[in-house]
């Protein structure tokens, strides 16, 4: 196990590098054969409205704690080797990166399952909120899980 330079779950304003996060997780084991990533990006359209900007807010510490719970449960339940979860906050433009989940496993089936579960779980349990700016103004999105 190499020295962990940065935490595998992070909430940050700045953008992240998908390649950088994948290379970091590769260092964990020489037995990784499949890495599945989910990258969520800012879409222009939402329920027919044209979005010009997104803005994310989180509950500091509690949100990071929830992400770490998701990571630990994914590793245990899906028998994957490791997972990293990064969510950006603040202003996000259309096309920009919002959230990244990387699931590394020996085989691909578990990596797909773990990654898909983790993003659904993040939406359900992690105190992060999205505000959309459209021509009609700004609105906090109230997603029903």
């Amino acid at each position, binding site marked *: 196990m190499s020295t962990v330079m940065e935490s595998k779950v992070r909430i940050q304003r700045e953008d992240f590098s998908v390649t950088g996060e994948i290379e970091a997780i590769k260092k964990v084991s020489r037995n990784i054969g499949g890495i599945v990533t989910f990258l969520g990006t800012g879409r222009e359209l939402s329920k027919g409205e044209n979005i010009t900007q997104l803005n*994310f807010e989180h509950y500091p510490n*509690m*949100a990071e704690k929830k992400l770490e719970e998701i990571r630990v449960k994914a590793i245990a339940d899906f028998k994957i080797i490791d997972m990293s979860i990064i969510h950006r906050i603040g202003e996000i433009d259309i096309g920009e990166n919002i959230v990244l989940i990387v699931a590394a496993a020996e085989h691909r089936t578990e990596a797909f399952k773990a990654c898909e579960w983790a993003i659904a779980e993040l939406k359900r*349990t992690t105190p992060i909120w999205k505000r959309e700016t459209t021509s009609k103004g700004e609105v906090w999105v*109230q997603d029903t899980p």
Partner: protein
Amino acid sequence: MTRLLYFASLRALAGKSEESLELGGETTVRALGERIGKTSPKLGEMILGKKVMVSVNQDVATLDTPVRDGDEVAFLPPFSGGAI
């Protein structure tokens, strides 16, 4: 003192993002909701009607969860992280 935090859409309803209250002894989330309802009726209604999630010291709480001096209580509208 007990610290109350209002996130996202609840900030406009509460008219603030946080406040500190003197509880005068142990209380519950329910009693806190009733107290908030006196100045922000709609917010109080949402808390008591479980339309918002409440956390005490960053753990998810129920209306019966005790609240003590020094606790951090947060009012959390439905989450919408994770892009789409």
